[in-house]
Structures are given as C-alpha cells and as structure tokens.
C-alpha cells in the first residue's frame, strides 16, 4: 500500500495490526528513558557536575523521540479504522518520523561526545548533519555507526571493570545496535521489523535493570 511519499511507504512496510504493539514498545522505551533522565537529574542537583546534565539531556531527547514514535505508531494503527484519520496520515507520519529521527540522533551524538577523550570533549564538538535530509535508511545507518561506537566503548569498559552493571549497559547498547541493523534489513524481510522491536525492548530492559541495581544501593 502506498499512500504517497517514501516515509509513508516505509511506515506501512509492516502489517497495520503491529502498530498497536509497536506503540506500546515505544511507550515503554520512552518511560525507561525518562526514568534514567530523572535519575541523572537527581544526581545533577546533588553534584552540579555537567556530565550528569549531559546524561539527563541525552535520555530526555531519547524519551521525547520514542514518545513521538509511540504517538505516530498509534495514529497509524487508528487510521486503519477511520477515514478521517487516514486523510492526515501522510503529514503525521512524515513529521512524526522526522521528529523521532532528529531527536534520537541528537541523543546519540550527545552520548558519543561523552565517550570521547576529555581533550576532545572539552573542545566544543560540532557535528554538522543534514537532518532535513534524513530518511529511514540514512537514520538507521548513522545510528548504527554511533551506537556501534558506544557499544565498543562499553565493551572496553566491561573488559576493564568486569562488573554486572557495566555488562548490563554493554548488553543494552549491543541490543540497540542490533535493532538498528535489523531495521535496515527490514526491506528484505518484514519479519525482521518485529525482531528489531524485540531487540529494542531487550536493550531498554537491560538499561532498566542496571538503573534499579544502581538506584537501590
């Protein structure tokens, strides 16, 4: 089914019924992101250290991005039952996905900057990216590169520390990386879209477990 424009085509690549499930997946990942950002905010208020502020902003951007995606997915699902909603589907999907792509990349860039050596980090890191040109493929390729770098840095961290908390963060970023790779492969098999969502949930479940462990002690 092609309503018009590439984005809508991409959005309708999978069966419409799955959008009700995917909106729940995105809502859960948004919730976990907001929980991490709130934890970072509390640490920032307590310590006044800029890294806490950066971590908070990263997960706020991620949370808002996933909230937008949850709303877009839910709208797509609802539009299958209503002609009135279906009429506006193109605009909602276009701006919904654009918002998700932009905010997610900002979050990933912030996170990548945190892993850069201090001497690079302290000089302002300016990344020029033609965000208005982002489409499904470009977004997932750039995300896979950035998250891949973060996952490698987490692997190095785990090899050094050998702690469960660092293992959980490593698992989380490997899962998020796999979800982006699976999304890229969706054009070959729509089932991979479901697999990508399973990886995404597993990744955020791992982050949530780490947060509970750290927050408890």
């Amino acid at each position, binding site marked *: 089914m092609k309503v018009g424009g590439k984005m809508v085509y991409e959005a309708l690549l999978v069966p419409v019924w799955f959008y009700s499930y995917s909106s729940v997946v995105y809502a859960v990942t948004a919730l976990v992101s907001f929980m991490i950002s709130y*934890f970072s905010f509390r*640490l920032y208020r307590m310590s006044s*250290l800029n890294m806490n502020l950066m971590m908070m902003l990263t997960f706020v951007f991620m949370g808002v991005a996933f909230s937008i995606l949850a709303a877009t997915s839910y709208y797509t699902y609802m539009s299958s039952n209503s002609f009135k909603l279906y009429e506006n589907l193109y605009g909602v999907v276009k701006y919904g996905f654009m918002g998700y792509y932009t905010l997610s990349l900002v979050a990933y860039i912030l996170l990548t900057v945190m892993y850069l050596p201090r001497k690079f980090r302290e000089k302002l890191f300016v990344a020029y990216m033609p965000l208005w040109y982002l489409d499904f493929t470009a977004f997932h390729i750039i995300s896979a590169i950035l998250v891949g770098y973060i996952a490698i840095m*987490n692997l190095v*961290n*785990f090899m*050094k*520390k050998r702690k469960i*908390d*660092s293992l959980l963060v490593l698992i989380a970023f490997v899962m998020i990386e796999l979800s982006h790779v699976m999304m890229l492969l969706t054009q070959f098999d729509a089932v991979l879209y479901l697999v990508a969502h399973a990886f995404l949930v597993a990744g955020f479940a791992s982050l949530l477990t780490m947060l509970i462990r750290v927050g408890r002690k």
Partner: protein
Amino acid sequence: MIGQKEISERTKPERRSKASILQDILRAIHNKGGKARPTHILYAANLSHDRLKKYLDMLVLNGFIKKQQGDNTYYEITQKGLEFLSGFNKMKRFFDAFGVEI
C-alpha cells in the same frame, strides 16, 4: 621490547576524576568534624596548592562548603556537601556502568 615510556605509563597511578577530587576534599573536611583548615585539606586530599584553591573555590561557588575567615581560614561542609558525599557512590556506580568519566 618495552620502552621506558611505556613502563612508566603502565606503572603510573590512575588519574583521579574531577568528581573523585571533590569527594576527597569533602571527605577530608567531614572527617575533621565538618570543619577544616586549608593545610589539612591539602594533605588529606593530596593536591597542590594551586589545584586545591581552584577546587575549593568551585565547591564554595556551588554551595558544598562555606569559607569562614577569622584569625584562621576554615572551610565548613554544608548540607549540600553532605548530600554529595552520601550520593557519590551511587553516582560513581552509575557512570562506571556506562564507562563514562565524570
């Protein structure tokens, strides 16, 4: 063959993060009953005079400690400073999990 520079790189102690230095200073003041002189803090936190001054100014500015000037200068830990000390381990674990230096 391992070069001299590489040996010294391997054996040199790990550089303390900014947060660890702040914690060491606050702990030094706290262990002295909540009020300490700069000389005591200098030795307890193992810092040079210039670096100590920089960090003390930062802590005063952020409200973690108060400077008391009379015949002698003292630094007193505040409620915010005590909260930093109790929450530091949680923060350290959080950033250690991510492998990010604070």
